[in-house]
């Protein structure tokens, strides 16, 4: 039995996926060190990787179906954690009460972790074998599952994290027989209403002037107030551009992050640091690695033994695509500055841990693809 298991583990364990993820984290740790050489963020990140691998292993060798069975319990636990953030146990950093400090465990960011119970809860609801197209009732329940954590996160307030929840639901709905014409209609409505809502929001004062400035800084960063709202975007663009083809060589001392022109270089703007240090070549390789990682996950989803396994993996894929797009888009000056970490690259234990837990689910699904 043990031998059978061992053989199956070496055969079915998704080494490619895990190695890609670990590779990106190590590359990211080098960049964190470049960004903040005098701080211990990079060492912390390595420790985080160790913890994350252990967590991933535990998830991998647990049957994901069993975990989905307990989804409502996890989900409620997650909501409690998010609620704790708003209590005196919460910790405020940079004006956002997004962290919670618990005895023994220490300080962490629940909004990162609660994505997982939310995914499980959605899969618990949508994972059964489908017989027809998506019903309105199903959709509304899915919306409610999402609304509770998102609502609590908005109270922190952390709009960036809240946004990362939406693609999870979108992917789940998309893969739950939602009619294509609804998808197209929704896209169309989005294209029309977003600019309209923006204009109306500005006129009615619902969009606050600082938010408006941030958006304007994106639409035209070169002409935006370079000392005010455009500052971060412009400095990020300059940092990225400075890297050129192969990266700025031999002037680590004067890097944009060392001279503090680039804010939050080890977290939100880690991609700009990467761009400065490794140039177009390094960044293109990183994008390629993300592409392979995502492809690998989609392949795993295709191979999954059941609908719920497929949904778990694809929900994770949706979350990853969105985070990668928003974070790098921000660093490249095509999206507004929103505090969304770059998965596997940004320093932060919560982020790396939750991403590896998500990968653990994918591995778990893989390991069980021939069971039953």
């Amino acid at each position: 039995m043990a031998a059978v298991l061992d053989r199956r583990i070496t055969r079915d364990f998704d080494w490619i996926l895990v190695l890609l993820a670990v590779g990106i984290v190590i590359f990211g740790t080098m960049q964190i060190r470049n960004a903040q050489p005098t701080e211990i963020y990079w060492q912390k990140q390595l420790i985080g990787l160790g913890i994350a691998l252990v967590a991933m292993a535990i998830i991998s060798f647990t049957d994901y179906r069993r975990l989905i069975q307990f989804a409502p319990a996890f989900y409620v636990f997650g909501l409690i954690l998010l609620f704790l953030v708003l209590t005196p146990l919460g910790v405020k950093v940079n004006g956002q009460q997004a962290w919670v400090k618990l005895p023994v465990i220490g300080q962490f960011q629940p909004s990162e972790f609660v994505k997982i119970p939310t995914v499980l809860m959605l899969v618990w609801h949508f994972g059964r074998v489908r017989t027809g197209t998506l019903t309105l009732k199903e959709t509304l329940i899915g919306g409610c599952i999402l609304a509770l954590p998102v609502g609590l996160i908005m109270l922190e307030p952390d709009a960036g994290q809240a946004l990362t929840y939406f693609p999870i639901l979108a992917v789940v709905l998309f893969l739950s027989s939602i009619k294509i014409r609804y998808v197209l209609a929704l896209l169309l409505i989005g294209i029309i209403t977003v600019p309209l809502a923006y204009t109306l929001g500005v006129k009615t004062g619902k969009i606050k002037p600082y938010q408006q400035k941030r958006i304007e800084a994106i639409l035209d960063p070169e002409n935006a107030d370079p000392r005010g709202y455009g500052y971060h975007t412009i400095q990020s663009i300059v940092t990225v551009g400075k890297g050129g083809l192969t990266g700025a060589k031999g002037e680590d001392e004067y890097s944009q992050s060392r001279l503090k022109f680039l804010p939050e270089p080890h977290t939100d703007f880690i991609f700009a640091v990467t761009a400065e240090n490794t140039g177009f070549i390094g960044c293109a390789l990183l994008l390629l690695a993300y592409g392979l990682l995502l492809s690998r996950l989609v392949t795993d989803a295709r191979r999954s033994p059941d609908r719920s396994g497929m949904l778990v993996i694809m929900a994770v894929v949706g979350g990853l695509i969105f985070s990668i797009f928003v974070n790098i888009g921000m660093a490249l000056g095509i999206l507004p500055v929103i505090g969304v970490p770059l998965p596997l690259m940004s320093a932060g234990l919560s982020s790396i841990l939750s991403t590896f837990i998500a990968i653990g689910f994918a591995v778990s699904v893989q390991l069980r693809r021939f069971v039953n």
Partner: protein
Amino acid sequence: MKFIDTSQNLRARLGTIQIIAFLVLGLLGARLYYLQIVRGDELKKRAEEQRIRLLPIPAPRGAIIDRTGKIVFVGSRQTYNIILSREDLKGKNLETLISDYANGLNLDEQFLRERFEQIKTQPAFESVLVKENASQSDIIWVDAHSYEHPELRVELQPQRTYPANGFLSHVLGYVGEISKEQLEDPRYKNLKPGDIIGLKGLEAYYDEYLRGIDGYRKVIVDSRGRIQQEIEVIPPQAGQDLITTIDSDMQLKAEEALDNSATKRGVIVLMDPNNGEILSMASSPKFDPNLFSQRISTKEGRKEYAALILDKDRPLYNRAIQGRYYPGSTWKIPMSIEGLMQGHITVEKSNLVCGGGITVGNKFTRCMGSHGSPPLGYAITKSCDGYYYRLGIKMDAEGYEKLVEDFEFNKKTGIDLSGELNNHYPSREYKKKRFPKEPDWRQIDNVYASIGQVHDEVTPLALLRSIAAIAIGGKMYVPHLMKEFKPVHAIGEDTESEDYRKPRDGFVFQRQEPKVISFTPAMHKLIIDGMWGVVNGGGTAGSAFPKWENFEVAGKTGTAQVAALGRDCGERCRDHAWFVAFAPARTPEIASVALIENSGFGGRNAAPATRIVYEAYYNRKMGIQPDTTSNGQFAASNAKKQGNRQ
């Protein structure tokens, strides 16, 4: 796919998500390519620009030195300035800053407000001077507040130091910060706000030679403007030292003479008639040029400046070139030589009737005495007005115009100082311009113009120039203060480099050929005899001078009427006293002009002032120990001490 799900085309939907992932990554890649490859160089330059700063190292100005090259009148000493880097002002409340600085650095709030205004209007420059001549406690304050105010920086600055007591102030002038208007002047094309330039006197006239070229430190700063590292230093190139023609001893004596004069307002200029070198130029009252180089940005300094501007005695202006006075009877000297040259009188028969005055139309203009029908020499010695009334009538407008032309009274002397005024002079054309209500040249004008009233209004320097020319027989030099500029060596070795500073060659004053006014030695002798008589032959300056051996003084007094006759307006309407002179009478080494404002008769006031200077000159020439009790010595040693360059 391991599970059957017929209700949806799941495979296609998974494929769609995968394609979206690739599209997103592709879009990011394209943007990355645009920023790093297409715009890479431009953005790289931008990153460099924002982290590299050039901090100027101000160059010391050339010193200003006496004619012997030994006494430094003006030098520089090292002081500290507090500079504001505009880079780090973003998002700060200026009013809070203003009150912070005003309290911490003891500055005037109004002054700071003007400075901040300047920042707004001159966005191209990155630093602004907040406080000059910072004290030790100011520097400590800046250090202690480097966290709240990273925008403040302390910079070393050579500061101009002038002699105490306003010694030579009008000649030296002063330096100050370049103005907005001057920045647009092509003369100052490489300068920036806050730079120091010469504003008055020699400092202004020879600014381009005295001024050095600033060096700079190339440093790397962080986003808050704090210096991280120095990359290179380009040392400044000092300005060239100026050796002047000023004779320190004579200048001290001239100033002392004015200080001890009746009204303490006036001017004494001493010149070498044989080449135009100005040995001393004293104008009283004086001012302290250190006000402009050291204290102008303080509250007290601004008050002091306002007081100077409002002072009725006008201490800021150099009476030698900016004061215009009726020459009075001193005008009779150019009149006399022109009378002879134009043939209205001759050496053999120079007599004209005095008549105690003259009647023109129904108006009688009197002479101060009754001199019969004196010859020219006697008319000069006794300053007979009646003689000159008649000579003036003989000369008429044409004669005056020739006089003006010959002695260049229609021009500035061309001395190497800025701000010189032109004279008013007798001429038909000029009268039309000056007195448009009475445009015609009438007989009475000939009378007035003959004794240096109404039409003649000259600067003391212009008058001195004409007297000096007559003294040496007709050669008229352009007066000047510059004797030599010292060379300065090059900075840097690579002559191709942008930072190379060419050596600056030394040079001496390029003297123009003098204008020659041709008259015969006999004419010359006649005038000199008359002027000798003024001092030594019972003339109008009779008791003023002793008879020095081989140093007999020739001169002419003048008393310039200030107010219309019969009008009494107090002290400021009293006559100005003049005395022009040279010595030795037959072989002049020095020529001088002295004017004491509103002191009355020239022989009694201006001549004794002149004597103080001549006596010092004579004593030094003869090796006689000067009077050591004179307070001038103190000023001299003071000048030496303060002026030392570091």
